[in-house]
């Protein structure tokens, strides 16, 4: 899916000011946003989800315009159909695993899921290997299980795009490699385009088809790794990515 982002946002606290001016286009299903912390990755993701409003610019996914300051378009997050997985998952602490996962399917405040909804929650519990935890609260789960609940919860409503804010950062290194592969599996199973924030080069290696490199509130470089591979120029492309990442680390 084509994702076009061109936004400006100024964030100010009492003693600090941050200016984001991010513009990138990407057309593949696994877009990795890479950069040091504080470079504006997370703010950009929240602008795409509608959790923050840019000062100006335009956000487009597929054929849908989510935000366009010139045309006065600003869809609320509820209408964007974009899934969001927070770094620390933001599971609802008062709801069981199955009610967390079914949250998007239940629209009345105290309504119950219909038969179709319950069937769908059962399917997701099975796919994400959470059946035995269905009636547990989030605080009773391990880190990896929490992450799977967050993924299942975000995917159950058929989002057009899934945004993941450092999905692996809260996991220990041993688990990280496994979950990275699970993410790949989820992506191919649900055929959902993803934008993944990371500052781990290993994530770039495994996950990126499009790579967007952030630095100091700007998009420093973008790479099309999928086409690069197909065109047989893998070696040089990899070198360029490696150089770009190394430069960031040297600077940061």
């Amino acid at each position, binding site marked *: 899916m084509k994702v076009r982002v061109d936004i400006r946002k100024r964030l100010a606290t009492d003693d600090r000011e941050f200016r984001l001016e991010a513009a990138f286009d990407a057309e593949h299903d696994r877009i990795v946003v890479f950069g040091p912390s504080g470079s504006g990755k997370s703010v950009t993701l929240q602008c795409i*989800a509608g959790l923050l409003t840019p000062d100006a610019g335009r956000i487009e996914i597929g054929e849908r315009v989510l935000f366009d300051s010139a045309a006065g378009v600003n869809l609320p997050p509820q209408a964007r159909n974009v899934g969001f997985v927070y770094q*620390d998952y*933001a599971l609802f*602490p*008062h709801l069981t695993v199955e009610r967390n996962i079914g*949250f998007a399917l239940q629209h009345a405040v105290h309504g119950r899921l219909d038969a179709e909804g319950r069937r769908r929650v059962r399917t997701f519990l099975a796919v994400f290997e959470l059946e035995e935890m269905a009636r547990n609260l989030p605080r009773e789960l391990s880190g990896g299980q929490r992450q799977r609940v967050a993924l299942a919860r975000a995917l159950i409503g058929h989002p057009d795009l899934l945004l993941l804010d450092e999905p692996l950062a809260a996991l220990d290194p041993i688990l990280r490699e496994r979950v990275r592969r699970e993410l790949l599996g989820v992506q191919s199973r649900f055929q959902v385009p993803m934008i993944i924030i990371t500052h781990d080069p290993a994530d770039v290696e495994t996950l990126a088809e499009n790579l967007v490199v952030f630095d100091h509130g700007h998009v420093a470089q973008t790479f099309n790794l999928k086409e690069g591979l197909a065109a047989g120029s893998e070696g040089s492309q990899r070198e360029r990515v490696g150089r770009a990442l190394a430069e960031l680390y040297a600077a940061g």
Partner: protein
Amino acid sequence: MIGQALVPLLLTLKVAGCATLLTLVVGVALAFVLARHAFWGREVLDALCTLPLVMPPTVLGYYLIVLIGRRGWIGGWLYDNLGVSLIFTWQGAVLASAVVAFPLVFKSARAAFEGVDRQLEGAARTLGASEPGVFFRITLPLAWRGILAGTMLAFARGMGEFGATLMVAGNIPGRTQTLSLAVYDAVEAGRDDLANFLVLVTSIVCVAILLGSGRLWRPRH
């Protein structure tokens, strides 16, 4: 003697109950607005809402008379248009108790709302929940223990209200004489047995409420 205690006890429970309900609705709504929206004068409004906690109840009672007395701004309108007056009625006692107990609900509700992780509300929005849906499915369930604890304190405070109630509703046995006023009357009249009994009843109810709200304060998640 039990009969002499029962009438003020029932009246007290009625007045404190209605006052608590009133502060609950207004206090929670106002606390939510102040916890979630930054606007000019927010902290001034917060201070105003907390004022009844530190002001002498008789002063509050006087303010209320100025407002809802027959020649008051609100009371005058009520009397001219609807022919009702709240002075020397149990409804007036409800209003007095509500004003005095208001900060207890308001303060704990604001703290409870501010303690709810904003990310959870954001997550609910990306999952399609409407704004009322976010409030009733996420924010309120996560804040309700703090709100309920404040509400129980407000009820206990309403039960013991004396000064503002006396100013606004007077001390009419059977109509506006609540427990604390009845205790005062009994002591004044030298009826120590009745005073003892009334004090015992009041103490038991208040201790029970404090024990209940103490349990609610303990965090669960």
